[in-house]
């Protein structure tokens, strides 16, 4: 019972925040002369529902049409996967988000309010965008074969194992380095990390834009893009390999990356909660002076956190390119994966389990908002909803006070000490 109460207590405010956020955003929908209920129905159906979903009810129980004879069968929506399930698509979108959110969490928990996830993400992405093409080409020329098709089976297998690993390591290194710079500036010179990381983000985006447009540009496509990564570097999605016949996965490029993200989540949890290093960095945030008195090198702990944070963001870039896009396109980060990760970390209150729950919801909301664009409303409605949710979520103390006013406080049990004092 106590356990249930604790869960209810920790969930109540986020749920209220979401409801209030939707309510507040509905004012904006009304201003555009559109019915909020229809809009939200569309938003959630496009985001979370099965194909052909129309109402809120369809999110759970759906009358699936039978194409052969025109009849319908009643199905449980999340498992219904004709033409590919949206939930698989959500998982695909959520994978990099989980990693960037973890990255934000690690930085926050060292007291660094770093927003550099976006810059580290694009730097990691461009690294594998380059290595995924260049490295296999080097190996082929060393082995004396023309390309993937003509390579012997053994070489292919070895490369399938090695190339992605090298790519991942390189991108994590680049991300870590890009995050180390603001960390070092903070530790040594006390440069405000918020401002420096924002500027580093802008620089990274311009740099990647330059690299994609000039040195790494592969063809005269309208939108500049790099060459497609070699098949051996590809983290092949499920729908091409093990689950090729499962319709639930069709159309979604979710793959090994999801496992990598989950393992990373577990490792980050272990690091933060169960290791000395994690304790040191949490102490640094909690009370820097106390930590230093206890013999903790706070600068080192902060730098370690920034390195891990950058590596995680770089890893997110790897998943986005090796697992999903397979090439870097100019402006590919319009959706701001890194910044979304930061928002997820704030919404999840830096809890690892919370991130795993919030990230798919966030991804679904993004998907729904993008599809909203084909209707009357721009996709920015999603951003408005999210900013309201963040605001209400951050009002926790104030909301709790209001709640206490609404629901009368339960009579407090008398303090046992007082009784004893009275008896004696």
């Amino acid at each position, binding site marked *: 019972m106590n356990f249930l109460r604790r869960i209810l207590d920790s969930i109540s405010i986020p749920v209220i925040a979401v409801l209030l956020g939707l309510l507040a955003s509905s004012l*904006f929908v009304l*201003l*555009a002369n559109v019915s909020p209920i229809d809009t939200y129905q569309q938003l959630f159906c496009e985001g979370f529902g099965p194909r052909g979903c129309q109402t809120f009810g369809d999110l759970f129980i759906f009358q699936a049409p039978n194409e052969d004879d025109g009849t319908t069968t009643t199905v449980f929506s999340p498992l219904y996967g004709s033409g590919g399930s949206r939930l698989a698509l959500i998982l695909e979108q959520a994978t990099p988000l989980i990693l960037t959110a973890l990255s934000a969490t690690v930085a926050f928990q060292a007291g660094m*309010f770093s*927003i550099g996830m976006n810059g580290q993400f694009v730097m990691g992405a461009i690294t594998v965008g380059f290595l995924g093409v260049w490295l296999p080409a080097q190996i082929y020329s060393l082995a004396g074969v023309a390309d993937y098709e003509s390579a012997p089976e053994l070489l292919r297998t070895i490369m399938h194992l090695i190339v992605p690993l090298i790519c991942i390591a390189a991108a994590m290194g680049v991300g870590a380095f890009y995050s180390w710079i603001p960390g070092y*500036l903070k530790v040594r*010179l*006390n*440069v*405000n990390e*918020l*401002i*420096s990381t*924002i*500027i*580093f983000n*802008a*620089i990274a985006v*311009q*740099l990647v*834009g*330059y690299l994609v*447009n*000039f040195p790494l540009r592969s063809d005269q496509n309208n939108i500049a893009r790099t060459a497609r990564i070699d098949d051996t570097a590809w983290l092949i999605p499920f729908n091409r390999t093990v689950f090729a016949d499962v319709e639930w996965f069709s159309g979604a490029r979710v793959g090994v990356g999801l496992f990598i993200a989950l393992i990373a989540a577990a490792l980050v949890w272990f690091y933060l909660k169960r290791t000395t290093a994690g304790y040191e960095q949490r102490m640094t945030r909690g009370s820097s002076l106390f930590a230093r008195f206890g013999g903790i090198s706070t600068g080192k702990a902060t730098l370690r956190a920034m390195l891990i944070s950058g590596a995680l963001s770089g890893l997110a870039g790897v998943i986005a390119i090796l697992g999903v896009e397979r090439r870097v396109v100019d402006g590919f980060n319009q959706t701001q994966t890194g910044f979304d990760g*930061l*928002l997820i970390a*704030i919404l999840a209150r830096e809890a690892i389990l919370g991130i795993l729950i919030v990230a798919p919801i966030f991804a679904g909301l993004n998907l729904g908002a993008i599809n909203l664009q084909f209707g*009357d*409303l*721009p996709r*920015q*409605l*999603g*951003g*408005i909803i*999210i*900013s*309201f949710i*963040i*605001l209400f979520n*951050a*009002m926790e*103390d*104030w909301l709790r006070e209001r709640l206490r006013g609404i629901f009368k406080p339960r009579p407090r049990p008398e303090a046992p000490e007082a009784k004893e004092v009275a008896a004696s």
Partner: protein
Amino acid sequence: MISFIETYQRPLRIVAIIAGVAVLLLILFGLPINLLQSSIRLSTPYVLGSLAALVASRAGVLNLAIDGKMLFGAFIAVAVLFHTGYDPIVGVIAATVAGGVLGLIFAVLYLRIRINLVILAIAVNLFIANATVYFMRTLYGAFGTLADPSIRSLPTIDLPIISGIPYVGQLLSGHNIVVYLSWIMVAVVWIILFRTQFGRHLRAVGENKAAAESVGINITRVQIFALTVSGMLAGMAGSFLSIGVLSQFVDNMTDGRGWTAITVSLFAFEQPVPAFFTSLFFGLSEALSFYLQGRPELQLPPDLLLALPQLATIFALVLVALRIRTSELLKRRDFAGQFGQELEKLRQGKLAGAGD
């Protein structure tokens, strides 16, 4: 490092001054005059933005939502002109008021409801960035840019006497009203901060909240006022972006200028007049970026040129930090020296400060 600075303090200072003067002369006479004129013009959002940042941080609130407030001002200026078709100056006033209102809301959310400052700033920036695009599309049906014949840009004003002077006239005259307003604002903010009672209260709150409260200053009122003024200045900066340079609103048109403005205020040690001169250098870096983009014969990649102001910002940040660090170290050394003297006196049997 500290001993090095200690020994060569005077030569170092002279070298720094000579280098500064050389750079200034180089800039003034080596660069084309239209580039300098546009860099003075483009520094306006930095001047106003850094004033906004320093008013807030002098009152003890790190205002990180300046970017959002600027964007809001830019949007409101264009939206008001689109609806009414009045003189552009109305747009400037509307943007200033709108920025002030947003600043007030920000202050109430922070001080009354006690939302974490950084999270609040992130939420406000995110909200404004999305809401402006949302309204641009739903109310005006515009994609990406909102432009209309009814939205005119601010007219340029020729200053009566100065425009007659050959070189200076070209530099200082022929800007629009917000540019001149920003110069006036530098003086106004300086006077408010350092020559009025309210300014003293404001600085007291920023420096030591508990001490200020103990002498009866209403901290909340001071901070609310500072954030409102900060919002007004940021809104005015935004109106310059949308109807001063262009006559349209572009999706996310502040492009991080609010963040740079915060850096400017840090660089200037939160002093209005140095902030003005620092802004000029950022204006120059931006003007240079546009100027070089306008000459394809130089074969410079545009993306890297766009990063020029950002690189300047990072450079400035590091410089600021070094300056603060050195002054801290010097202060600490002075303190240690003083402390040593007092200790010596104590050893000799005298009471510290008891007189000789």
